[in-house]
């Protein structure tokens, strides 16, 4: 039983450590003393109680989900049911097209508010699909994905501004090409680097890009650009503008899913997997590593730009907040939660991480601020407990856990 005793000691030492380290933040309040100009520290439990009243239930739900998942893993079926079913669906494009038709027609039955949420889910699904090409397929960590998304949005907004009447559908290829070109240019110097350097460079690029659009007069600074009506997604035939956005989004997601799935299972996709698993070995086998990494980078950036153009089309508004670190992390969390490299996984991750906070915020507005805190916790917990994500493959699990 010495092992058990050690475990208890470690845990109690850890919890005591957490308590003492967080105590000054949680249990005290700092305020200026007008008489002397000094600051004073006083005991103030209200902050702590409010914080704990959200975080403790949140973590409890998380622990319950982990427990239930472990139980399901022990007792449930051996084969991953959801992932298998979803992959089968992806193998049959006609089934997906039928699904898209069904979803589009379902759009006529719901309110505009639900439709706009649906359009956002589609947007994040596109972003997650795009980021998955670099992170999931090729193993390149991109932390500044929002820059590509933002560049697509800005490209379509700038063109819409200078060419009145430029239609929304035409801005999609424009967004794709702009972002892909940008991705190519950023990737060119960076792809010789190891994964973690690449991550930071892309992050620095996103920061520099945001500073750029904030300081360029043509991009409207912090105010952003409002698109002229002609360049938004408009009412089309019997469909209202909201319904048209939803239908547009659904079809884009379906087309992208099919294309990305085909790409993954092509010769190119297999080369990407080889690079992800062992770059040196892949190069030895004659795979043109740099060229394929650049391709993955450009495709991924391009899909981000396409999503950006779609965003500009249905919201009619673009501003520098599209390229914040928060956006990049949100999409990253979607890919990691769902399962890097797994298409059904990242689609599920995107839907969950957009819908859960949005619905919760509508129900309990006080906890809106806690969203990022929980995202961060999810990233850490997933890496520690289930690095391959919700619907990830065992192959990815082995890669992520490494030999040690």
């Amino acid at each position, binding site marked *: 039983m010495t092992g058990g005793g050690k475990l208890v000691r470690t845990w109690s030492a850890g919890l005591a450590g957490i308590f003492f380290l967080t105590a000054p933040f949680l249990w005290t309040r700092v305020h200026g003393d007008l008489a002397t100009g000094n600051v004073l520290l006083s005991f103030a439990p209200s902050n702590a109680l409010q914080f704990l009243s959200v975080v403790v239930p949140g973590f409890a739900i998380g622990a319950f989900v982990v427990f239930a998942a472990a139980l399901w893993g022990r007792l449930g079926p051996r084969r991953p049911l959801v992932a298998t079913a979803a992959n089968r669906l992806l193998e049959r494009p006609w089934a997906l097209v039928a699904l898209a038709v069904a979803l589009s027609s379902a759009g006529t039955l719901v309110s505009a508010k639900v439709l706009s949420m649906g359009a956002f889910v589609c947007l994040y699904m596109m972003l997650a699909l795009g980021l998955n090409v670099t992170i999931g397929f090729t193993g390149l960590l991109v932390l500044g994905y929002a820059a590509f998304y933002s560049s697509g949005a800005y490209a379509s907004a700038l063109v819409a501004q200078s060419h009145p009447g430029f239609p929304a559908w035409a801005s999609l290829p424009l967004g794709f090409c702009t972002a892909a070109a940008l991705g190519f240019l950023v990737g060119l110097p960076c792809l010789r680097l190891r994964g973690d*350097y690449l991550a930071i460079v892309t992050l620095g690029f996103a920061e520099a890009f945001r500073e750029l659009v904030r300081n360029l007069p043509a991009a409207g600074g912090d105010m952003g650009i409002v698109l002229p009506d002609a360049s938004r997604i408009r009412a089309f035939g019997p469909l209202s503008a909201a319904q048209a956005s939803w239908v547009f989004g659904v079809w884009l997601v379906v087309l992208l899913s099919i294309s990305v799935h085909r790409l993954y299972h092509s010769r190119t996709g297999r080369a990407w997997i080889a690079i992800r698993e062992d770059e040196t070995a892949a190069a030895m086998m004659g795979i043109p590593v740099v060229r394929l990494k650049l391709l993955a980078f450009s495709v991924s950036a391009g899909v981000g730009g396409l999503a950006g153009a779609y965003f500009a089309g249905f919201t009619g508004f673009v501003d520098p907040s599209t390229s914040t670190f928060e956006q990049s992390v949100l999409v990253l969390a979607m890919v990691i939660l769902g399962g890097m490299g797994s298409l059904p996984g990242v689609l599920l991750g995107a839907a969950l991480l957009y819908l859960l906070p949005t619905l919760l915020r509508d129900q309990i507005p006080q906890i809106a601020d806690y969203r990022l805190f929980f995202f961060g916790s999810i990233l850490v917990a997933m890496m520690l407990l289930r690095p391959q994500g919700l619907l990830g493959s065992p192959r990815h699990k082995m890669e992520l856990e490494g030999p040690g």
Partner: protein
Amino acid sequence: MLEILVNGLARGAIYALIALGYTMVYGILGMINFAHGEIFMIGMFGSIFALGALGSAGLVGAGLTLPVAIVAAMALSAGFGILNERLAYRKLRGAHLLAPLTSAIGMSIVLQNFVMLSVTKGKLDFPRDISAPLAETRWSVGPLHVTALQTTIFALTLALMGGLFWLIQKTRVGIALRAVAQDRTMASLCGMRVDGLISLTFALGSALAAAAGTMVAMYQGVVRFDAGYEMGLKAFAAAVLGGIGNIPGAVLGGLLIGLVEDITSYTIRSEWRESTAFVILILVLWLRPHGLLGERVADKV
């Protein structure tokens, strides 16, 4: 012109202190401790908590106030650094490098939002009674003007770096640290307590960041929960510029980035100051990925 150089060097000394933490962790674990900027931010808050505690106890003004605050901030940050490593990184040693990096990003978000939620969304003021005398005292030697605060920054940076070099180069613990950085398995076979030494690395790096945090809090007069993000990125750029994993390199890189930033904002446009470090980072990684002083490292297979 000289004034710009002094300002730039003071800023650079701060970057160098933070960059040391990145470089030490990279040297020993081969990972980028993305949450290091947050540790710096926690140090900023730590100094204010300490000053507040001293103020409530009626102990302000004995001349020891600032040193006590710096030491308290360093202790708090060191604790957070150790906790961070234990919670988020230890289990992921030896895993694919995406795993610890993602975990570090998660930890950085958690820490930043923890401070936002538990302290304030806005800012806390650094007590002016402590910072103003230092910031407003100016010494002039010929054409050179230096404030007492800048002098404090230089002196503290020099002292801490000197201490660190002594620790790493001259003591038994330093030898053990270098051994772990060189070959972790071999070091543990030789009886070194690898886990403890890695915790020590995190503690040292975090304490240096907290000292920098206190200085920045005095320099700027306010403290915010999101102050660590940009500072962390720039210090990381400094570490890469000098050659990540290389301790003198981090110092050199920090000073250079500080100088270039101030020169840019003076000669070109002050709006571009914030982007300078990233442009340098991208250029360095492109032209000389191993940095100014770093050795060329082969890809890990």
